[in-house]
């Protein structure tokens, strides 16, 4: 490393003025009244309206339709919209969409652990419910011992 670069400059870069590494989307711009800046602000407000519209849609379905539409369909609807909202917040508000592709991948890949995490644990919960209901050892009824019922 030091064969290619003076160690001073590296030291300076990492421990000194971090602004050299500062990647802010518009780090080098100065005029907040410029068209570029205004477009960015417009985009932020647009995302706000999108998030608001999605939330209103969720609440309306939750209030009025959650018992008339099949439960699975309603849940799929809620989860899809939740992921969509999360995507907007991370990509636009957190500016992850403006970072280098390698960094985006670095941040997002570990989250795929959740796929296994969710499937495994929900399946486990479902399995326990079935055990409680059907296992001959437990009788044919659910028995739940309240924490203070044990003597």
């Amino acid at each position, binding site marked *: 490393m030091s064969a290619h670069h003076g160690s001073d400059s590296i030291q300076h870069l990492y421990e000194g003025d971090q602004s050299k*590494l500062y990647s802010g989307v518009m780090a080098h711009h100065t005029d907040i009244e410029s068209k570029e800046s205004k477009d960015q602000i417009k985009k932020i407000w647009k995302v706000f309206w999108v998030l608001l519209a999605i939330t209103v849609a969720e609440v309306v379905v939750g209030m009025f339709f959650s018992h008339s539409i099949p439960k699975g369909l309603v849940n799929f609807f809620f989860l899809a919209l939740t992921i969509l909202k999360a995507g907007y917040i991370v990509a636009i508000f957190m500016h992850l969409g403006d970072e280098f592709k390698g960094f985006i991948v670095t941040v997002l890949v570990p989250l795929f652990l959740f796929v296994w995490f969710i499937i495994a644990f929900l399946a486990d*919960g479902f399995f326990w*419910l079935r055990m409680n209901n059907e296992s001959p050892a437990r009788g044919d009824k659910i028995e739940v011992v309240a924490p203070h019922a044990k003597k």
Partner: protein
Amino acid sequence: MSHSTVVTSAPKENVWIGGRSPYNVSYGKMMMWFFLLSDALTFGALLISYGTTRFFSAVWPDPNEVFKAFPFMGHASLPLLFVSLMTFILIMSSVTMVLAVHAGHYGDKKKVAYWLLWTIIGGICFLACQAWEWTHLHGELGGLWGTFTDPATPVSKFEHFFNHHNAGAILDQQPLVAMQSTHNFFNYFFTITGFHGGHVTSGVVFNILILVNTVNGVYERRGHYEMVEKIGLYWHFVDLVWVFVFTCFYLL
């Protein structure tokens, strides 16, 4: 054909040999992302254990029945309305935060301070809403954690949390099963919204600190407002978690 080959085969600059940031992102900002990643796993663990408990429960309280109160509206049944207001406040404060970050990119001290102030106000409003909700539930349940543990509790104390269309049979025949679910539901509710509320609280504290720094010109002298951007990441993450809490507790 041969021309384009020449262009694409030009040696690619190796960004990993040192001396520069390969992702063009500062140490502090990258570590904030990794901290948020670990925090996401913590929140994920809490929400998934909530999901597991819910999956092994034969019945579960209906959010439309549990959360239907609104301040000053007495006993009117207004499901989801109050939490929608809380969600709106948090999304709004996320927008003001991103506007503060944007102003920071342009080094506009006045606008950074202005939008940070609104973000702090939004955060405090959200916390006030949560305080009201917890107080309301405390009055209704007679406690926060660890309620509904006495097997002698009459069914009338918790049956109104359920949708009788789905849970009627269990409530009649095995009220203890429903009581156990109520117990679990509220324990998870207070743990998860409490953990989230703790994040909002620390976010408000951080925002106040960077507002003071901004007004004192600390970032102006430093030449950049990256600290506003880093705290902004944290603040948006808190909003992001709320999106999932909202779905898991109030919608599903």
